Structure formats: structure tokens, C-alpha cells
């Protein structure tokens, strides 16, 4: 059993990146509007995050340095601070949205208005981050989040025209009613969600939490190459299920209930129960991932003690930032802002954070002072350089596309 649970970190990290509340809705929205024609963006994103997460995990295993340590060591305090501001903005906005997301998922079960759930959820998230052991958190939330696999079953049970979906994906066949700028905006949104920077913060810090050494490189790679593709499959399954149900009706998805409906259509009540469990677990997992990542990045920039591998009283400043984040999240949600809309603004800050996070990882992954004999091979370097260029292009294009398309309308 322990051997199977060893991939929990990768699974939980990927859930936070691919099926957090913003992505759940975006995937279904994209499926309902664009069919599978944007599926390639998810595939490209999965490959990219695998390459960079593997590097950050390898650095964590061999040199015991998490990603934001590298950001400060290689970019210095000034540019590092710029990245810190961008990264914390992305992570905190997502954290706020996730607490709202758990509340929305609980509203689906209980019919109690989500705002009533927000303080309860915020308190629960904080208790988990403060008291629960890291391994317990990743195992329980990672496993429960896997119940979203029900989307794959549903997509299969809905008997879509697989040939047509495959053709749409392979030929990037944009529907006639949508403009190319909107298409590009969603391509960048999906790519950015797959490569969102808090995944590497969480994954590398999680490696340090679990006390990885050079011996654990194989475990780390298993985490990467099972976790992230699984996240990608969940992401594509949600889009496929939404395409099959909503495309013929011309409905565009914008609520969490609509995201889950195709499962209920395909699998009935049992399916609905599983999908709601999956929503709660995935958004709760993403809340823990982003909440910790805010603390990780700030503490690693400043050099404070961080991590759940020490008693909370030894890492006071780290836990204090988590308390502040939780209070801030609950406060922002109480203004009745739409949690799903909150994640869409994080695209702006991703544009700063993405290149400034992945560049130092690539530099250090080639540095024998950190990695000895475990530096990058030639193939990894060629792929990673290509992705770095892609990330810069996506970052530059993100803001203009966001303005031109009015956030994808």
C-alpha cells in the first residue's frame, strides 16, 4: 500500500493544477464551446509541466532546495521579489477561489447557500494546514480527488463519436462561430493552467517535506509521470463529457453544477454522488496546495523556517502567513465576488511568474554545483529550452489577448 501511496504527492499537485475550481469550469466551458479542438493545449501543457516538475523534483531530492530558494539564489532579491509578487498573486487568487469552490461544491450537496459554508471551509482548511501530517493530507486528498475519474467513465458511457472528437483534437478544428483571438486566449489559459507556477513550488517543497534524497529520484519521477498525465486526462475527460452533452444544444457552461451534469446524465445518482465527492476533494486539495504554496514561496524567499516537517511552533512566521491567507480568503469571498471569476484574473500575474520561475529551475538543473552527476541530459535541455521560449511567448500574448477578447467572451 505504501508503494502505491508514494505517488500521492504527484497526484495532489496535478489536481491543484488541472482540476481546481477555475479549471473545472474552464475545461467544461471550453468543451461546450470549442469541442475537443483545444485538447492539444492540454497535451502540450502536460508535457511541459512534466519536464519542469521533474527538474524541480530532482533538484529538491539531490540538493534539498525547493524552487523559491533557487529563484532568489539565481535571480537575486530584486527580480526574485518581482517573481514573488506575481507568484503570490496567482497562488493567493487561486486559494481564495478554492475555498469558494469547496463551498460551492457543498452547496450542490446541501442546498445551503455557499456563503454560509465559506467560514466553515476556511476554518477546516486552516486546521488541516496547521495540524494534519503532510503525508496524511496528500494521501487522503489525492485519493479522494481521483474520484473525478468518473468523468472519464461518463465520457465513455455517453457514447460520443470518438472519431469526430479525435479529429477535432488532432486538427485543432476551431468551430466556425468562435474567433481566432478567443481560441488563442483559451489555448493560453489551458496551457497556463497546466503549467501554473504553484505546482512546482508545492511539488519541490513537498519533496523536501518528505525528506527525499538522491535515492528517491525514481519515486519522484513516478510521481511526475503518473500524476500530471492523470491530471491531463481528467482535464480532457471533463471537456469531452461537456462537448458531448452541451455542444449539440448550444449551451455554454458557467457554473459548477453544469460541469457535473454530464456525469449525472451518463451514470445517474451514483455518478452524481461520486462527482460531487470529487469536486469537494479536488477543490479542498487545491486549497491546501495553494495555501501551503503561499507560505512556501514567502518563507523560502525570506529564509524563514517553513514546512510541516517541523512542529508548527518552530515555523511561526510560515504558519502566520497561512492564517493571514485564510482570513483574507474568507474576507474576499464574503464580498460575494464570483470565485470562478477570481481565478481568471490570475492569468495576468502568471505572465510575470511563469518565465521567472521556470528560468532559474532550468539554470540550476544544469549546474553540477547543485546536482553533481544528476544534471540535465541533452534531450531534456532541448525540450526545456523549447518550452521556455513557448512560456515567454504565452506570457507576452496573455495580457493583450485577455483585453481584446474581454476575458474570452
Amino acid at each position, binding site marked *: 500500500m505504501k508503494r502505491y501511496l508514494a505517488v500521492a504527492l504527484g497526484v495532489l499537485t496535478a489536481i491543484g493544477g488541472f482540476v481546481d475550481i477555475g479549471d473545472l469550469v474552464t475545461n467544461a466551458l471550453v468543451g461546450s464551446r470549442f469541442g475537443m479542438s483545444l485538447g492539444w493545449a492540454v497535451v502540450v501543457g502536460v508535457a511541459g509541466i512534466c519536464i519542469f516538475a521533474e527538474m524541480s523534483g530532482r533538484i529538491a531530492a*539531490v*540538493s*534539498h*532546495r525547493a524552487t523559491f*530558494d533557487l529563484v*532568489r*539564489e*539565481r*535571480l*537575486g*532579491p*530584486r*527580480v*526574485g*521579489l518581482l517573481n514573488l509578487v506575481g507568484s503570490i498573486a496567482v497562488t493567493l487568487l487561486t486559494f481564495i477561489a478554492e475555498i469558494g469552490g469547496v463551498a460551492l461544491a457543498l452547496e450542490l450537496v446541501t442546498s445551503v447557500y455557499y456563503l454560509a459554508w465559506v467560514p466553515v471551509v476556511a476554518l477546516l482548511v486552516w486546521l488541516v494546514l496547521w495540524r494534519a501530517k503532510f503525508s496524511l493530507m496528500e494521501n487522503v486528498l489525492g485519493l479522494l480527488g481521483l474520484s473525478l475519474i468518473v468523468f472519464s467513465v461518463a465520457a465513455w458511457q455517453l457514447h460520443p463519436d470518438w472519431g469526430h472528437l479525435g479529429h477535432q483534437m488532432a486538427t485543432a478544428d476551431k468551430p466556425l462561430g468562435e474567433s481566432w483571438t478567443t481560441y488563442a486566449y483559451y489555448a493560453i489559459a489551458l496551457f497556463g493552467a497546466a503549467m501554473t507556477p504553484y505546482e512546482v513550488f508545492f511539488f519541490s517543497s513537498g519533496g523536501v517535506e518528505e*525528506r527525499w*534524497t*538522491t535515492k528517491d529520484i525514481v519515486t519522484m519521477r513516478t510521481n511526475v509521470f503518473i500524476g500530471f498525465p492523470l491530471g491531463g486526462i481528467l482535464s480532457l475527460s471533463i471537456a469531452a463529457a461537456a462537448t458531448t452533452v452541451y455542444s449539440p444544444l448550444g449551451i455554454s457552461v458557467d457554473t459548477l453544477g453544469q460541469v457535473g451534469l454530464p456525469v449525472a446524465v451518463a451514470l445517474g445518482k451514483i455518478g452524481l454522488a461520486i462527482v460531487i465527492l470529487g469536486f469537494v476533494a479536488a477543490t479542498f486539495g487545491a486549497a491546501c496546495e495553494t495555501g501551503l504554496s503561499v507560505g512556501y514561496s514567502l*518563507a*523560502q524567499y*525570506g*529564509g*524563514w*523556517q*517553513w514546512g510541516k516537517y*517541523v512542529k508548527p511552533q*518552530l515555523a511561526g512566521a510560515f504558519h502566520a502567513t497561512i492564517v493571514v491567507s485564510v482570513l483574507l480568503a474568507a474576507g474576499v469571498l464574503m464580498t460575494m465576488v464570483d470565485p470562478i471569476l477570481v481565478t481568471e484574473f490570475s492569468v495576468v500575474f502568471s505572465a510575470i511568474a511563469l518565465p521567472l520561475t521556470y*528560468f532559474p529551475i*532550468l*539554470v540550476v538543473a*544544469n*549546474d*553540477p*554545483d*547543485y*546536482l*553533481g552527476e544528476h544534471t*540535465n541530459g*541533452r534531450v531534456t*535541455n*532541448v525540450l*526545456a*529550452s523549447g518550452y*521556455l*521560449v513557448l512560456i515567454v511567448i504565452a506570457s507576452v500574448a496573455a495580457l493583450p489577448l485577455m483585453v481584446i477578447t474581454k476575458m474570452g467572451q
Partner: protein
Amino acid sequence: MHDFRPDHPGPIDGWPDAGFDAVLHLLDRQIVDSNGQLVGKVDDIELVEDPDGRLVPTALLVGMAALLPRFGAHAFRSWARLAPAFAERYQPGVVEIDLVDDVTSGVHLSVERDGLLRSRIDEVGHPVRHRLSTLLAMRVDLPPDAGAASHHARVLDVRLRSRAGASGVQVGALLVGRGRPGSMLGYERSPERGPWLIASVVRWLHRHSRLVEVGDGVEVDWDAGVVRVAAGAAVRPVVDRSADGPA
């Protein structure tokens, strides 16, 4: 809790007597105490002039009073003014260099962290203390024959070498080049380091950077904030041109 160190010894193999680059290998690294608990970052490094005029690193400086001056005098003053009565607003915490047990990807101390960081209280007649960041902010006046780096040249990194006849290291050479963008990220040290894209861009940006040997003809003027390099001082290119083909 115990000190949990990486398997790999680098980057400073043979501390405290092995040479290294102060910015690349020590500045901004994580400081870890003897129990493996985190202390802070190396926010700055204290340099002291010994009686022979050589610059020797004597302490790691930790805290906002060390970090903020690197963002500029204004940032530091604004922060200090929030509580002007407290001396620690102006004086950083000091970790004597003798307390550093080893440097791996982190800086490992031989003592526990509780109550470790204190400000310096100097008696009359104390040695002249400088900061690495001050040196890094200095303009460098190079002689015309040194190459094209003579405009807007700054100190990018400080190469420390082991001291003859004593333990520890001293400033041996200055890596000098255009101020921005930043340092060479270690790409000058091994020509084969990848990836090709980053290595090529860094080497191209630093094609005019020079290594200036500290010694005759090199004067560090701390008051004026200038490093003056006279004609005839030992100045050589940092990038090995033969590895890149014709320039």
C-alpha cells in the same frame, strides 16, 4: 530534528579554505543551524581590510538591515523610519564566518539558531568593515586597453581565493562587466554547461566582461564608490573565446 545535508558536497568543496565566487556560491543562500532548522538567507557578506590591505570575508549579514540596502537607500530609510528608535533597524544580524561549518546548497552552521543573530558592537580601533553589496554597487574605471567593458562597468561578482599562510579566503579578483542584466549564472566556469540557448545568450551578453586581478594597479575607493583599474593591471576576458569560435 537533525541536520539533514545533501549527499553532494558542492559548491565549495573544502570549506573554509577553498576558493569560490561570493555572489554565485554564497550570497542569498539558505542558512541552516546545527539542528537543521532554518536561520535566514545570506543577505549580505561583511568584508574587512586586514593590515596588508587585503579584503577578507568575516561574517554573514542577515536581516532587513542587510537586505534592504540592496534595493536602494530609499527602501532602507523608509523601513528604518517605521521604528527609528531601535538600533536593529539599522544594524543587521551577524553570523561570524567561523561558525560556518560547511557550504553545500545551503550554509550549515555549527551552532543552534536561538538567539544567534546579534548586531555588532564595535570598540574603538575596530577594523574597517565593508559590505559585499557596496562593492557590487561600485562603478569600475577600466583603462582603455582593457576592452569594450569600459562603459558602465560594474562589479558583478567577487572571486575569493585561499589565503597564503593563513586559514580562510580573501578577495582575489573581481568579475567586471555591464551592470545589467545580472551575473553570469556560473556559465563562465564550464564551457560545456547547457542548455545551449541560455549558455549562448549569457556568453553573448557578457562577451565584454573581464576578470580583474586584485593587486598592483587596482584601487577600491570605498568613499567615492569607484574601483580604479590602472593600465598594466592584470585584466583578462572571462569568456573563453576559443570555445565560441571566431568573435
